[in-house]
Every structure is written in C-alpha cells, then in structure tokens.
C-alpha cells in the first residue's frame, strides 16, 4: 500500500513538474531590432534567460533601412508579432503618444532606474515628454558618434614633422574640430588614394543629421527648444551655422563620391586604408579591432567627438531603449524579462558580450573601460550626448532637415545660414500644423 501511495505521489509530482516545464516552454517572447552585431549579442544574452526560465526569447531583426517602416507598419496594424521592440530614441514621442508603447513609469520608479542607468540614456531613451517623469523604455544599447583613426599615420615621425612645419602644432588625436579639420586636410592626398576623413552623408534617414548634429552641438548650437518647440534663433543661430559650415568643410576631405554614405562605408574607409579618420557610431567599431575584418586593426585608434571653438563638447546620441509593445499578448511575461534584464549581473554579462550597457556601475568600472580600445572613448561620450527631436512628427522634421542641409553640404548650394533659416521656417510650420505651440 505504501509503495502504491509513494508511486502515485511521485507520479503526480512528476506530472506537475513536466506540466510546469511544458507550460514555461510554451511561452515565447519576440524582441524586434535592427540587423547588426548588438542584436546578435542580445540573442546570446537572452539564451541565458531561456535557460533560467524556460521562456524562449527570439531577437528578430530586419536591415536598418527597413527597421522603422517595418516596426511602424506592425504598430499601426496593432499587430502582436513583437512583444518588445528596441526602438530608436526618436520614436519615443510617436510610440508613447500613439499608444504603441506600454507605460513603464511604475516599473521605472519601483526599480529606481534613475539611479541605475546613465542620466543621458534615461533622458533620451526612456522619458517622454522630456522632464515629465513618464517612462516608456528601459535603456538597452547605449551608443553615440565617435571616431576611429589611423594610429600609424598619426605616429609616423615624418608625418609628424611635416604636420608641425605646416600647422605649427603637434600632430595628435584632435581635441577640437579645428584640429580635426587641419588633420583631415593634411592627410587628404587624392593622388595617393588617401583621404582625410570619412563622415556620414546619407540623407535617407538620420545618418547625415547625426553627423551634422555632432558638429552643431559642439559649436554651441542646438536644434531647438524641445520643451517649447521654439526654433527661431536656436536652430538657425550663428553657432549652429558655424557647426554646419565645419561639417561642409570636412566634406571637402572625404573620398570621392562620398555623397550617400553611412556606417558601412565609414568603416570601409578604415578597413580599406582610405581615410585618416572616420566617424561612426561606437556600436559599429567591433569589426575595426578584428584582424579578420580590418587588416589595419592593430593600427586603428579611437577618440571621442572633439570640442568646438568655445570648448563645448557634445556628440549625437545613437542607441536604443527596449519598450513593451502595447499590442503584445505577453505583456506580463515581457515585464518579467525586463526585471531580469536590469539586474546588475545581466548588465555586466551584456557588456561582456559586446553590448553597450547603460548601467552606470558597469560603465564606470575599469574592467569595462579597458575591455576594448574604444570603450574609454564611449564612456567619455555617454556623458556628453544630445539627441534629435523625439516629437511624434520627428520623421517629417528629419526629412525637412535633410532636404535643407544636404544640398549645402554635398551639393555646395547656398550657405549654412540659409540652410538653417529654411529649416527653422519649415520646422515652425510643421510644429504649428501639429498644434505644438500652446
């Protein structure tokens, strides 16, 4: 009898255990992101979550050019294909006000994420409207504009001597845009198929805008007052025009035909031995330190965005936060996943895998800053970042900026002041149309 009872209890226990396991395995979460290395690192990271909980997590990706269109097409259809999305920072306004993102304010406050994550990442990846204390995402992948350069060219004694003779100061990593411009000019030797600098020029989404912003911000300019939507006198200030002029100046020292270039081409400028310096988001730097993808890996160095004439130093923010899609059928499960994701040990593992954690503690650790040749520059940059408008009509605003600055920078049409005056006028009209001026 005792044997029978034991067997029955054991059987029930086994059945329950199997049942639980089967139910856990049935649960699946899908995270949507763009197709790039950090998405692969994230898939690797979430495999640990699956091992711990039995919940299968898939990171679904799409090429960058389709990312926005595909995500918003799904949002607009109120589709539940994705439970979470690692959306661009400028999507926050549209994602929150149009009901696509779940409000994470309570989650944010409960876990005191304001003390855990780097301040800039909270401000730009999570909060909307700015200063409202409403949060729609958890900072996931920090990123910003930085620079790579050819250390061997910079350290060549003959080059150093020639540079000093021409410009009157030592050739070194540029700390100002003026120095960056001089170095670009110095190394620009088209007859030797060597060029000074590679910058972003593609105006089909936000590439060129991010490059231009980095210069404008460092020159003391701004794109407008994001709280009041005031643009007159800010977007088209003399400082902003000087920053745009500098960007146009740098375009003179790019390889020929550099009129539709983004992260792929800017990395190729280094891997192909074309340019002395190249702008790119930090997340695209891993191939540059890999000998298999960059024959000049040992000779490639990195630096943070230089300062403008008044010593102000900023960089355009990239990176993304992770949001729960409000049409998901697995919102509770997604919330549990986020609880796991923000844990210190998960953030450390995320950084170890190559992801750019936004956790202050991990960012500040020596282990992180020495992990790669560019992590120190990344750390410096993450405390001096500014972002583009995150207003719901950002796509229209971005297109207007592109339409006005591209002909000036790449086509040489008009002046920087004219391009920004036109931009300010276009933006004012757009914000008026959407009743942003109360």
């Amino acid at each position, binding site marked *: 009898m005792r044997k029978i009872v034991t067997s029955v209890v054991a059987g029930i226990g086994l059945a329950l255990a199997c049942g639980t396991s089967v139910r856990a395995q049935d649960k699946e979460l899908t995270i949507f992101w763009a197709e790039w290395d950090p998405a692969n690192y994230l898939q690797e990271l979430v495999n640990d979550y699956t091992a711990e909980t039995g919940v299968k997590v898939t990171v679904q990706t799409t090429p960058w050019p389709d990312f*926005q*269109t595909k995500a*918003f*097409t799904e*949002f*607009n259809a109120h589709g539940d294909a994705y439970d979470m999305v690692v959306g661009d920072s400028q999507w926050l306004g*549209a994602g929150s006000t*149009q*009901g696509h993102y779940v409000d994470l304010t309570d989650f944010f406050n409960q876990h005191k994420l304001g003390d855990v994550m780097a301040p800039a990442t909270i401000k730009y990846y999570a909060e909307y409207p700015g200063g409202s204390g409403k949060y729609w995402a958890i900072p996931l992948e920090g990123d910003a504009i930085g620079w790579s350069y050819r250390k061997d060219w910079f350290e060549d004694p003959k080059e150093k001597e020639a540079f000093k003779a021409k410009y009157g100061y030592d050739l070194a990593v540029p700390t100002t845009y003026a120095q960056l411009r001089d170095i670009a000019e110095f190394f620009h030797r*088209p007859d030797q*198929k060597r060029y000074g600098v590679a910058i972003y*020029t*593609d*105006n*089909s989404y936000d590439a060129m805008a991010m490059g231009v912003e980095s210069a404008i911000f460092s020159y003391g300019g701004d794109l407008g007052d994001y709280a009041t939507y005031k643009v007159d006198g800010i977007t088209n200030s003399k400082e902003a025009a000087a920053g745009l002029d500098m960007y146009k100046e740098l375009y003179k020292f790019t*390889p*020929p*035909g*550099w*009129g*539709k270039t983004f992260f792929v081409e800017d990395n190729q400028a280094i891997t192909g031995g074309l340019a002395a310096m190249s702008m790119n988001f930090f997340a695209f730097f891993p191939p540059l330190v890999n000998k298999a993808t960059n024959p000049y890996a040992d000779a490639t160095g990195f630096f943070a965005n230089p300062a403008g004439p008044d010593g102000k130093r900023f960089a355009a923010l990239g990176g993304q936060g992770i949001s729960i899609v409000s049409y998901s059928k697995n919102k509770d499960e997604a919330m549990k996943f986020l609880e796991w994701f923000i844990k210190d040990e998960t953030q450390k593992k995320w950084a170890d895998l190559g992801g750019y954690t936004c956790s202050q503690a991990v960012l500040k650790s020596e282990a992180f800053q020495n992990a790669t040749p560019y992590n120190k520059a990344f750390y410096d940059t993450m405390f001096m970042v500014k972002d583009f408008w995150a207003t*719901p*009509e950002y*796509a*229209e605003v971005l*297109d207007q900026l*592109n*339409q006005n600055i*591209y*002909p000036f920078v*790449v*086509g*040489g*049409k008009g002046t920087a002041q004219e391009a920004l005056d036109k931009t300010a006028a276009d933006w004012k009209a757009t914000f008026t149309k959407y009743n942003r001026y109360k």
Partner: protein
Amino acid sequence: MASVALAHLDPASRAAARGWSDLTIRNMFIVPTLVFLIVFNIFPLIYSLGYSFTNFAANRSEPWQFVGLQNYRELLSDDHIWSNFIITAKYVIVSVAGQMIVGFGLALLLNRSFPMKGLITTLLLLPMMMSAAVVGLFWQLLYSPSWGPINYVFGLGDFAWLSNPDSALYAVAITDVWMWSPFVMLLSLAGLSAVPQHLYEAAAIDRASWWYTFTRITLPLVSPILLIALIFRTMEAFKTFDIAYTMTTQPTAELIAIRLYKQAFQQWDTGKSCALAYIVLIMVLAITNLYVKYLNKVKER
C-alpha cells in the same frame, strides 16, 4: 463507369455532359476575376480616394476627420511638391527621349539579316529583365568615382555622378535608358518587320535616298507602334521609384514617387499621401489621354 466515359470527351463536351451551359462555364472564369479585381483594385482605389479627403494618419489612434479639399490645396501650393514634379518632368523627358532614340536606333540596326542575330537580340533584351533595385545598385558601382569603370573609360577622373546635385538626375535617367531601351527596341522591331517590303523596292527603283525612304515610308508606318511604346514608357518613367531610390539621395533627384513613399511610409501622413497619389494618377491619365488622341489621329492618316 460514367466518369470513365466522360474522360474520353473533350472539356466542352464533358461540361455539356455534366449539364453545364456555356454561360456557367463563362461565369466560372469571369466571376473570380471580377471578385479579385473588386477586392484588390477597385475597393482600395475608392477607399484611398475617401482617405484623401481626411486627415487620417495610419500611425495615430485618434479618429480621422473629414477635411474636404484641404490636402489637395496644401499639396498644390507646396513648393517642395512642385519641385518634385519639375524634377519628375525633367526625368521623364530625358529618360523617355533617350529610350526612344536608343531603342529605335537599335531596332533599325537589328532589322536586317546578319550572323547570330537571334543571340544578339536576346542579349540586348537582358537589361529589362533584371530587377530595378539590382540595376540601381549595379549602376551605383559603375558610377563610383573610386573604382567605377565609367569615369575610367571616359577619363572623367573623380567626377561624382551621384553626389553631384547637377548630374544625379541624369545619371539615374541614363540607367533607365539602359534598362528600358530594349523594350522600345522590341516594339519597334515588330513595327519595322510589318512594313511591306514592296514599298522599299518601289523606293529603290525610284532611287529614293535613305533619308527620304526613312522619313516617308519607315517612320510613318512605324509611328503608331512607337507611340504605344512612348505611352508605356512615359507612364512607367513618371512612376519610377526603385532605381532612383537605390542610386542617390540627392534632393535634386527626388522624383514624385519617392516623395509619395516618404509621405506615406516614413511620415505616415496617410490622407495627404492618398491625395498626392491621386494627383499623380490624374496627371498620368491626362498625359496618356493626350498620347491616345494623337495615336488615333496617326492611325486615321
């Protein structure tokens, strides 16, 4: 047993044996086509026409409002849109004229007997069989100032075709000419082969010059089919998107189809983009109508 017997009959007799009338058989083919046409063509057309009078934005949850002709008014008074139309007009003129000249020229060359004529004709037809996006990327490489063969062959040095605001549109038009001239060539060849040989023989007896024969016999007899090629290519060139979108982001090469795409799928201004689509449709219809009227006149001659 009955099915075995039916199997020996032709389809019409089989249908008759089953008691299906000609009308039933006709309806079996026509009804699905009509349903397909209504569901996938007519309904979206009417639905989008409705949207063009609203402020509907597909990415907003607020209800849309009827705004009357406001979208049309705003679009027609927008300088950017007119600039897109002017760019498109330039592109259509350059591209279609190029295709007509190159295509008809090739057809004249091919309209005679020579060795491997079939193979050469097939090879010449290849560009139009390729995907437009692939052609765009392929020509982007050809135009590259660093390693593209075009600058090397013509000794143009570092001339940046696609980064230069003055040349980007023409670079795209040249690509379109390369891709679609074979279409004009194909239609022209059909027209040329239909010209009665005895007319040429009579001209030869009268010692007519090549130019006289070409302008008085060839061109008038081929012109109806050339006009048909012109109609097709104008309509297509007006709607060009993929080649231009993959090749350049120059605002001077932003065709109206690219503006429409940005408005609809990047800015999600759905109501206005529907209105713009209708403006484009009306323009294409107007141009096509003019062509058709002229074509009818040519045929009456």
